[in-house]
């Protein structure tokens, strides 16, 4: 008997209905976001593909269907809790405590990181700014890499971005370094799911910010959702620029402003701060997207700070 896969729009409708039923407080907003995203012709198929990946990745790391849904709720509620605190204090909760504190509280917590990463993957389906970011990455960074590209991801997390560069491009190679052991294992599962063998990708545990790139030259670097998590993003950018291929090499990043998470250390209040960071480090911004963050149904008060997320495609620039 042939079993037909559900049509993309069915899969998406089922997910939206599941979220709305299980989590009423965020469900209505999620449905509204999906309604908005459906206007994009590529969305249903892409969303179904990501949902399928999230389900299979969740299964690979021990989450059943309810666990995958809970992971999404965990991601949303964690953001809301942190954001509620940030709106009162004007500072990220763990900014003064530093990286080692965050490593102990967040990155070393296997249960939390499993949930956080699967939830983040699902947010790429549902949050318009995350989906936009993903599409910018898919359509502007990935295809620009040469067929035999060497790609490095600083903090690859669940592995979606790095795997997107390698899947369907058998001559490309990738390296991911992550400070969370959970993420190293999870990204390994992602690569297996996507048919990317260990001969083509190296994933290791470590501090990606301090990782010795030696004399390697990379065609692509991914530092997305990284700069706000590290203590000295300026020094990091200066250091890694030397290893980006001059001319054609591209670094992809996305950095949020005024958006709290437990492991956010550096508060960017305006997107110009981020642009300045790149230019001061010698990068040239080739292309960018300002992505308005959804508010999970909360009306933003007048005069409230921007919550733009800035996605940047940068080259190594002309400075020696």
């Amino acid at each position, binding site marked *: 008997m042939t079993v037909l896969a559900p049509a993309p729009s069915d899969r998406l409708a089922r997910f939206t209905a599941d979220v709305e039923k*299980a*989590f*009423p*407080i*965020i469900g209505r*907003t999620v449905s509204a976001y999906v309604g908005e995203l459906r206007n994009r012709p590529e969305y249903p198929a892409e969303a179904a593909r990501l949902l399928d990946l999230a389900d299979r990745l969740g299964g690979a790391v021990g989450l059943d269907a309810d666990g995958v849904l*809970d992971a999404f*709720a*965990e991601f*949303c*509620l*964690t953001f*809301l*809790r942190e*954001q*509620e605190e940030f*709106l009162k204090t004007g500072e990220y909760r763990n900014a003064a405590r530093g990286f080692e504190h965050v490593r102990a509280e967040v990155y070393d917590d296997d249960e939390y990181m499993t949930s956080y990463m699967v939830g983040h993957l699902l947010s790429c389906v549902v949050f318009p700014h995350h989906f936009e970011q993903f599409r910018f990455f898919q359509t502007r960074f990935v295809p620009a890499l040469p067929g035999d590209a060497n790609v490095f991801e600083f903090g690859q997390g669940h592995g979606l971005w790095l795997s997107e560069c390698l899947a369907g491009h058998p001559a490309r190679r990738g390296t991911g370094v992550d400070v969370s052991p959970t993420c190293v294992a999870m990204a390994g599962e992602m690569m297996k799911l996507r048919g990317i063998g260990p001969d083509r990708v190296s994933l290791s545990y470590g501090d990606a910010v301090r990782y010795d790139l030696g004399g390697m030259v990379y065609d692509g670097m991914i530092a997305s959702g990284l700069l706000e998590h590290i203590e000295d993003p300026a020094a990091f950018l200066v250091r890694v620029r030397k290893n980006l291929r001059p001319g054609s090499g591209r670094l992809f990043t996305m950095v949020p402003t005024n958006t709290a998470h437990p492991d956010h250390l550096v508060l960017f209040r305006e997107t110009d701060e981020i642009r300045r960071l790149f230019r001061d480090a010698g990068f040239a911004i080739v292309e960018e997207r300002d992505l308005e963050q959804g*508010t*999970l*149904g*909360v*009306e933003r008060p007048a005069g409230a700070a921007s919550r733009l997320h800035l996605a940047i495609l940068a080259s190594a620039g002309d400075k020696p």
Partner: protein
Amino acid sequence: MDPIHQTIQDIARRVFESPDLVLTDETTANDVDKWDSLTHITFIVEVEKRFGLKFRNAEIARLQCIGDLKRLVEKHQARPNRASA
């Protein structure tokens, strides 16, 4: 009115800025002005502080009505080692 219900109602009146708000076990976010996802968190954080509890995020997300919240408080209060505020 049981004390848990009274406490939750007092908190809700303050958080949702509705001094005459009357909650029933069936009250949902749809029934109360200004109850959105962020004020929901403010409300829950206040409930946690008042009762000296800490709920899991998935528990908070799954709440459908005030009755669910009351049962959640009772469940956590019954645990031998509950988080303190």
